[in-house]
């Protein structure tokens, strides 16, 4: 069984494949190469999710590493009746949330001198980017959202997951996710309009 085989199998079937399940069982019993195979089979999907949430390459790397470390720590708790990737993505979302929190805290504790200079510089750079690139503007608008709304819109509209799936990943109800997505869309629209004026 190779990682490629697991990946191909995953592409065919949305649920947890027998090959992946066998690798999980082997990893649970302490087989390190089996754990490495699980990593190989899932790292790109975790990376894509982390990249869309954080929008930063270094933070994406940090998120992938922390996700797999947590996976190793809690693999014994994995219920084989559940979808493995759903469970793994929930870990990844939680890791990205923690990274976001840390980033926000870091923003609060900027040195006073930098705090005077940085917003004006950053605003000018972002202003130029936004005028040239709608995508950059959209990314900035999403970045300005509250964490819960940001996660909801990224998973629902960027990742194109179903509302139920997003609710499961965020540990909330589908109704809450619907409200969060609606609010996020409205805020993005207002934000972009304000920038274009």
């Amino acid at each position, binding site marked *: 069984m190779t990682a490629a085989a697991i990946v191909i199998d995953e592409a065919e079937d949305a649920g947890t494949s027998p090959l992946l399940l066998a690798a999980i069982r082997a990893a649970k019993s*302490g087989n*390190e190469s089996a*754990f*490495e195979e699980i*990593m*190989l089979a899932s*790292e*790109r999907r975790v*990376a*894509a999710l982390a*990249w*869309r949430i954080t929008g930063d*390459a270094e933070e*994406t*790397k940090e998120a*992938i*590493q922390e996700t*797999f*470390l947590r996976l*190793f720590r809690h693999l014994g708790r994995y219920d084989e009746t559940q979808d493995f990737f759903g469970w793994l993505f929930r870990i990844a979302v939680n890791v990205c949330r923690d990274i976001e929190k840390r980033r926000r805290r870091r923003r609060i504790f900027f040195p006073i001198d930098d705090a005077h200079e940085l917003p004006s510089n950053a605003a000018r750079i972002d202003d130029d980017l936004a005028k040239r690139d709608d*995508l950059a503007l*959209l*990314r900035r608008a*999403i970045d300005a959202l509250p964490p819960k709304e940001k996660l909801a819109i990224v998973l629902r*509209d*960027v990742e*194109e997951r179903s509302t139920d799936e997003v609710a499961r990943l965020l540990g909330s109800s589908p109704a809450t996710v619907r409200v969060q997505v609606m609010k996020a869309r409205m805020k993005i629209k207002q934000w972009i309009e304000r920038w274009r004026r």
Partner: protein
Amino acid sequence: MKDMRGPLPLTDDDFARIRANVMARVRPRRNVFAFRWAFAMLAAAFVGVVSYESMRVAPIAMPQLPPPRHAERSEAPPPPVPNVSLEDPPHAVVRTRAIAKPRIRAEEPSSTTQFRMEIQTSDPDIRIIWLPNQYDPKTEEHS
């Protein structure tokens, strides 16, 4: 929104480095865990052997503790039950009454103690001195 997806900014080398980092952090943990278990088992075996040997070579004599007071009380013989036959009339039952122990008096003065009483009269030149021959406690109590 779909355009937001974009290509991943990570290369294969980045993924390989992440994987190596994770595996490096995972491996020593397991080794440390195994080492801790082995050490605990070894320590438990050592303690077991040492305690067994010490018990076998020199058995420790348990000190004889005096029995507790309540045990003494329970061991004391029960008070004698008078033999009363049903044929005897009830007034024939002899009841024993506890006799009060004599009180221990304060140390009495010895009979050899000499008493001396002096009475001063109105005349400064006359003074009555009484010297009794022997101490009599009865006369002392009633007077």
